[in-house]
């Protein structure tokens, strides 16, 4: 039952967005293979949201266990990330189906998805570690994060192609690691017409260092914060 719904939920959301954005708003008309393009964006974004929103109250939710036994606290967050990854793998079967229907060619470039997914996991874990540790002390983090996620959904080019917004704005938006990951994934899997960080900055290879470096830095800081705070989880959660 759970698997069916974890497959069905993103599909239904995709269906709604697809109808709205192709039939009414006509945003996706210019993008080849827009259904696959949209679905891929939604699934990657969903992974990020599943991990981060699921982690916010994960430590506090396990408080009962934390007060009774000592175990490495990061496994709580890691288990959420792994569960979400299994979900992502299952739902990507749907992408494959859509690709076959839409005659999207698969090239060896698909291998780039591996480092991109790793970057996605790292970015999600960074946020998850920070939020879950912060929530132990500041109980309104969950409300704040709900709003931030909503805003970030629109600030990330999931529904709209970057070509439809001013280049200056696009150049800023793409520096967001989530935007870079989604656009790069679309580029290697769906269509080379996707605006990626590479194309927006004219093929400058070093520009990738900004989102990747930011992700790595954030992950480092978040891990350090989590590690420092985890000593007090038992008494504060």
């Amino acid at each position: 039952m759970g698997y069916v719904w974890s497959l069905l939920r993103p599909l239904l959301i995709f269906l709604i967005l697809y109808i709205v954005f192709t039939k009414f708003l006509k945003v996706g008309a210019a993008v080849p293979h827009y259904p696959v393009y949209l679905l891929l964006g939604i699934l990657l974004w969903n992974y990020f949201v599943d991990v981060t929103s699921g982690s916010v109250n994960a430590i506090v939710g396990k408080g009962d266990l934390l007060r009774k036994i000592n175990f490495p606290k990061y496994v709580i967050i890691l288990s959420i990330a792994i569960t979400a990854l299994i979900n992502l793998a299952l739902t990507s079967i749907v992408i494959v189906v859509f690709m076959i229907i839409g005659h999207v060619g698969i090239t060896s470039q698909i291998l780039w998805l591996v480092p991109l997914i790793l970057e996605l996991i790292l970015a999600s874990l960074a946020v998850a570690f920070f939020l879950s540790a912060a929530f132990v002390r500041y109980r309104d983090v969950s409300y704040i994060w709900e709003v931030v996620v909503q805003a970030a959904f629109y600030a990330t080019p999931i529904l709209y192609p970057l070509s439809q917004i001013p280049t200056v704005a696009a150049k800023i938006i793409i520096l967001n690691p989530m935007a870079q990951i989604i656009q790069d994934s679309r580029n290697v899997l769906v269509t080379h017409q996707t605006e990626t960080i590479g194309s927006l900055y004219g093929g400058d290879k070093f520009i990738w260092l900004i989102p990747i470096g930011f992700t790595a830095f954030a992950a480092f800081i978040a891990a350090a914060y989590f590690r420092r705070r985890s000593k007090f989880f038992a008494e504060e959660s």
Partner: protein
Amino acid sequence: MNDDIAIKVEGVYKDFVLPHERAGSVKGIFTSMFRQATSKKEIQHALKHISFEIKKGEFFGIVGRNGSGKSTLLKILAGIYQPTKGKVYTKGKLVPFIELGVGFNPELTGRDNVYLNGAILGFSEKEIDSMYKEIVDFAELERFMDQKLKNYSSGMQVRLAFSMAVRANAEILLIDEVLAVGDADFQRKCFNYFKQLKNDKTTVVFVTHDMSAVREYCDRALLIEDSKVVNISTPDKIAQDYVKMFMDEPVLQEVSKKNDDRWGDGSIILESIKTKVNDEFIELDVVIKGNKDFSMPILGFRICSFAGDEITGTNTKKEKIILPNIKKGATVHLKCKIPNILSDGNYRIDTALQYPDEITVADWWDNAATISIRKDRHLPYSIDPGFIISII
């Protein structure tokens, strides 16, 4: 650290910052910026300068009253809490049982729960494989292992959890009063198994209120009171100290004016009642006050268990004591000594002031005072007069 030491605690302090002193939200950070900074922090000292060593293979008891800090100490030994100051060294695989069946999931089978609980306690799948049969045998639940845990009776769940606790191949076991639950037979089985563990040099740290268990099983014990170590000694000595702690303390209770269980015409009232308990006597100290001129009052009282059973009682008429006439505003002071033959536990005292007819009530007061009796043994009966039994 010496080779035969299993746990070493060095100058451990633990403070808890009371949560209301801290900004509990991001919003709170902002709002407190505009409020005057109240830098006074309220800190609770749960443990103060705790130092001791536990040898390998020792059965070590930690005793103390509620709130004395013993559970905090156990949690620090288990690594659940971090000490504010000081260090804890442990040697060997430590398995804590702050609660039985940590992480048990009712939706899984008994077998899965053994593996889940084992994983949470820090055992690998292989290690559990090797312990599995023993655990199930010990719990006497072979036939139920493929049943979902939610279909177990609570006794069966406890038994499975117990078996995990005692059969887990740990070098140090920390046990927090968990053995107080479960039926007596199984408890005995567990304790006897612990005794057996001594031969394998397994260290057991055991937190309890039960002095008979301390006397029977522990090699050494630690008494903790008011966040500090009072004494570390033989179980007999510690059990004595623990019991004495309650005895030395006179329970003084002033009359509270407002009480619902009180009735009567109020022409004469009980001004105050104080109780004092020691090994030999229970003393009542009673002051009666006249609100009107009153002649020949009768004072009676009874002692009831907290469950409501009336144990004993008397009144001044039955004792052939004639109380003087009391003028308005005057007081009479009485003292009553009762041999302390009550069993270990808490009791309440009901008092009554009556007219000479023994019927009309001037001041009837249920639960006027409470007394707690601490004895180093507990009988399941109200009276413990002391027994002299000899073999002829």
